[in-house]
C-alpha cells in the first residue's frame, strides 16, 4: 500500500516538475514553466479536437503526431500521446450528444440516447453526466493502473519466451473475439498482419526477407506508415465515397441548465459504476479497448434495465455507462503495455513506436529502471482527466462550431498533415508512397468488410511473437510441447483455445453480433 503512495507521489512530482526556461530575449532571466502539465493539456485538447471531428480517428492522429514528439523528452512525449487517447473519448461524446455525429468510434452508442436527450432540451445534463462519468472512470482507472502495475510486473518477470508467446496468442484471439464481423475474416487479417511484419531483415540471421532489394524495406515496413495508410488515407478516401456532405444540420440550441437533476444523478450513478468496471476489464484484456467497451456497457445497461424500451429515447443511463466505459478502457489498456510490454490495441501499438523512438523498450524492466517515466504518465492521466472536466464544458460551443468546417476543406488538410508526418519520421519519400499504397489497400479492405484493426495488431505483435517462438523452441531443443508443459503457458493457451471455441459457437456469436448491431438500428 505504501508503495503505491510513494509511486504515485513520484509520478505527481514528475507531472508538476518545473523546467527553467531561459529565452534569449529576456537576457538571462529564466521563467519556471511546468512543461509536463502543458504537454498534458495540449494532448488532452488535441485529443478532444480529434474526438469532435469525424473523419479523423485516434490512430491516425497519434501516428501523425509521432514525429512531433521527437524533440520532446520521453516523459513529456508519452504524457502528450496518452492525453490524445483519453481526450478523444471526451470529445467524441460532445458531438454525439449535441449533433448526433459521433466523432469517434467509441462514442457511437452515446449518440443513441444522448442526442435524444438533447432534442428534449436536456443537452446540458447529458453533457455533464458524460463528463462526470468519464472523470470518475478516469480516476478509478488511474488507481487501478497504480495498484496492478507492480504485481503484474513481478508476474511478467516470471515469464519466459514460451509464456510470452502464449500470451500474445491469447491477445490475438481476444482481438478476434472482440472484433466486429466474421471471426474467420478477423483471423485472416491478423495473419496478414503477421506476414507483413516479416518484411525486412531477419532478426537473427540478418537475411533480407521479402524486401526485393528495396533499401527502404530493409528495415521492415514502418508501423506508423502502415497505420497512417490504413486509418488515415483509407478513411479519407472512404469518406469521399459517401458522396459529398451529409448536411450537418446543427441543432444550435443554447445549452441551458448544465446541472443534472437529483433524479438524473440517482439514475446514472449505478450505470457509471457498472460502466467503469466493465470498461476497466475490457481495457486490460488484450484486443480490447475503448470502442468495444462502450458498446458492451450500453448493451449491459439495456439488458439489466427494468424498462429497456426507454433506451433510444433519451435514457440517461445510455449516456452514463458507455461514456464511463470508454474512458476507463482507454486508460486501463495501458496496463498490459506498461507491465508486460505487449500492446493490447492499435493505439497502444503506436505508443510502443513512440517509446522505441526514445530508446525505451516497453516491458517489465521499464517500471523498475525508469519509474519516473511510468508513474509520471500514470499521474498525468489523473491530472489530464481533471483538466478535461474543467475545460470541456465551457468549450462546448467552440467544439460544436468546429463541426461547421466543411469536409471539402478538411480532407486536403488531413492529407497534407499525414504526408508531412510520415515524411518526417525518416525523411524518406518512399514512406509517403508506401502509406498511400496502404491507403488504397485499406480502402479495398473496407469494401470487402475486412477490419483493418486486427491487421495492425498482428503487424505489431509479429516480430515479438516470432522472436519468442524461436527462442522458446531453441531452449526446448525443438520440442513444440513446451507451450503446453509449462504451467503458466498451458493456462494461457487453454484460455485462448476456449475463447476461440466460444467465439465460433453459434449462440455466443449471436450475442456478440447483437452488441454491434445495436448501434446500427
Amino acid at each position, binding site marked *: 500500500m505504501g508503495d503505491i503512495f510513494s509511486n504515485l507521489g513520484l509520478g505527481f512530482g514528475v507531472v508538476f516538475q518545473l523546467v527553467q526556461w531561459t529565452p534569449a530575449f529576456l537576457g538571462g532571466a529564466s521563467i519556471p514553466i511546468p512543461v509536463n502539465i502543458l504537454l498534458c493539456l495540449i494532448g488532452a485538447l488535441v485529443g478532444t479536437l480529434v474526438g469532435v471531428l469525424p473523419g479523423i480517428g485516434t490512430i491516425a492522429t497519434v501516428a501523425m503526431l509521432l514525429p512531433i514528439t*521527437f524533440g520532446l523528452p520521453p516523459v513529456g512525449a508519452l504524457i502528450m500521446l496518452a492525453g490524445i487517447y483519453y481526450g478523444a473519448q471526451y470529445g467524441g461524446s460532445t458531438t454525439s450528444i449535441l449533433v448526433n455525429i459521433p466523432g469517434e468510434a467509441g462514442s457511437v452508442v452515446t449518440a443513441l440516447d444522448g442526442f435524444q436527450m438533447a432534442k428534449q432540451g436536456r443537452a446540458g445534463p447529458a453533457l455533464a453526466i458524460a463528463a462526470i462519468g468519464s472523470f470518475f472512470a478516469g480516476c478509478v482507472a488511474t488507481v487501478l493502473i497504480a495498484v496492478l502495475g507492480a504485481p503484474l510486473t513481478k508476474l511478467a518477470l516470471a515469464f519466459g519466451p514460451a509464456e510470452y508467446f502464449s500470451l500474445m496468442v491469447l491477445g490475438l484471439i481476444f482481438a478476434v473475439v472482440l472484433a466486429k464481423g466474421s471471426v474467420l475474416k478477423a483471423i485472416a487479417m491478423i495473419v496478414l498482419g503477421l506476414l507483413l511484419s516479416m518484411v525486412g531483415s531477419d532478426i537473427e540471421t540478418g537475411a533480407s526477407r521479402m524486401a526485393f532489394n528495396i533499401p527502404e524495406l530493409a528495415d521492415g515496413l514502418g508501423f506508423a506508415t502502415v497505420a497512417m495508410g490504413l486509418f488515415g488515407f483509407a478513411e479519407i478516401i472512404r469518406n469521399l465515397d459517401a458522396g459529398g456532405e451529409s448536411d450537418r444540420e446543427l441543432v444550435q440550441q443554447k445549452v441551458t441548465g448544465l446541472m443534472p437533476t437529483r433524479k438524473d444523478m440517482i439514475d446514472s450513478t449505478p450505470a457509471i459504476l457498472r460502466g467503469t468496471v466493465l470498461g476497466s476489464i475490457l481495457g486490460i484484456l488484450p484486443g480490447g479497448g475503448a470502442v468495444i467497451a462502450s458498446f458492451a456497457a450500453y448493451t449491459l445497461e439495456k439488458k439489466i434495465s427494468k424498462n429497456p424500451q426507454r433506451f433510444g429515447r433519451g435514457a440517461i443511463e445510455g449516456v452514463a455507462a458507455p461514456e464511463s466505459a470508454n474512458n476507463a478502457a482507454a486508460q486501463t489498456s495501458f496496463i498490459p503495455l506498461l507491465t508486460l510490454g505487449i500492446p493490447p490495441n492499435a493505439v497502444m501499438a503506436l505508443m510502443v513506436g513512440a517509446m522505441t523512438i526514445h530508446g525505451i523498450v516497453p516491458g517489465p524492466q521499464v517500471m523498475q529502471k525508469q519509474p519516473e517515466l511510468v508513474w509520471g504518465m500514470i499521474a498525468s492521466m489523473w491530472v489530464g482527466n481533471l483538466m478535461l472536466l474543467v475545460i470541456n464544458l465551457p468549450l462546448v460551443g467552440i467544439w460544436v462550431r468546429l463541426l461547421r468546417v466543411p469536409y471539402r476543406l478538411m480532407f486536403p488538410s488531413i492529407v497534407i498533415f499525414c504526408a508531412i508526418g510520415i515524411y518526417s519520421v525518416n525523411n524518406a*519519400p518512399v514512406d509517403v508512397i508506401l502509406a498511400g499504397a496502404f491507403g488504397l489497400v485499406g480502402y479495398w479492405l473496407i469494401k470487402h468488410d475486412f477490419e483493418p484493426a486486427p491487421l495492425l495488431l498482428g503487424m505489431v505483435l509479429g516480430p515479438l511473437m516470432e522472436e519468442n517462438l524461436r527462442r522458446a523452441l531453441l531452449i526446448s531443443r525443438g520440442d513444440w510441447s513446451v507451450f503446453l508443459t509449462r504451467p503458466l503457458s498451458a493456462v494461457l493457451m487453454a484460455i485462448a483455445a476456449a475463447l476461440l471455441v466460444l467465439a465460433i459457437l453459434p449462440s455466443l456469436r449471436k450475442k456478440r453480433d447483437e452488441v454491434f448491431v445495436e448501434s446500427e438500428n
Partner: protein
Amino acid sequence: MNATPGQAPVKSVMPKWVRGPQDFVGGIALMAIALFALWASSDLQGMRGFSFGAGTAPRMFGFLLLGLGAAVTAVGVLSEGTHLAKYHWRGPLFVSLAILSFAFTIRPMGMIFAAMTSFMISACGTPETRWMETLIVGACLTAFCALLFPYALGLPLQMLPTFLIR
C-alpha cells in the same frame, strides 16, 4: 441479406454459383497475397535442425493465410453474402495523386511547394470544391505548416526548392 435495400441493382459479373461475391473475391485476393509471399520467401533458409531459419516464420504464416483465404473463398461460394461494393474513382485517384506528388516534390522543391500542390490536387477529390476558398485555405495551411514544423517543432524540413537555396 441478398439485396441490400437502397443499393442499386448491380449487374453481377460473378457466375451464379458464387453466392457471396464480396467474400469470394476477398478470399481469392488473400490467397494471391499468400502465394506471392510464399514465392518471395522461397529463397530463404528453412529449418536447421530444431532452430528456425529466416524463412520458417514467413512460410508458416504464408501457408496459414493461404488456408484462411481458401476458407473465406469457400464461405463466399457456400453462403449467401453481400454483393461487391461499388468503387468510386474520383476520391482514390486524386488522393493518391496528391500523395505521389508530395513524395516526388518534397526533396527537389521543398515543403512549401509540395504541400501547396498536393493540397490543390487532393481538393480535386470531391466535386464540391470551390476554387477560391480552397486556394486561400491551402495557402494558410501551407504557411501554418511552414511555421509549425521547422520553428515550433524543430524538425529539419527543407522549405524552399533546392535550386533557390544554391
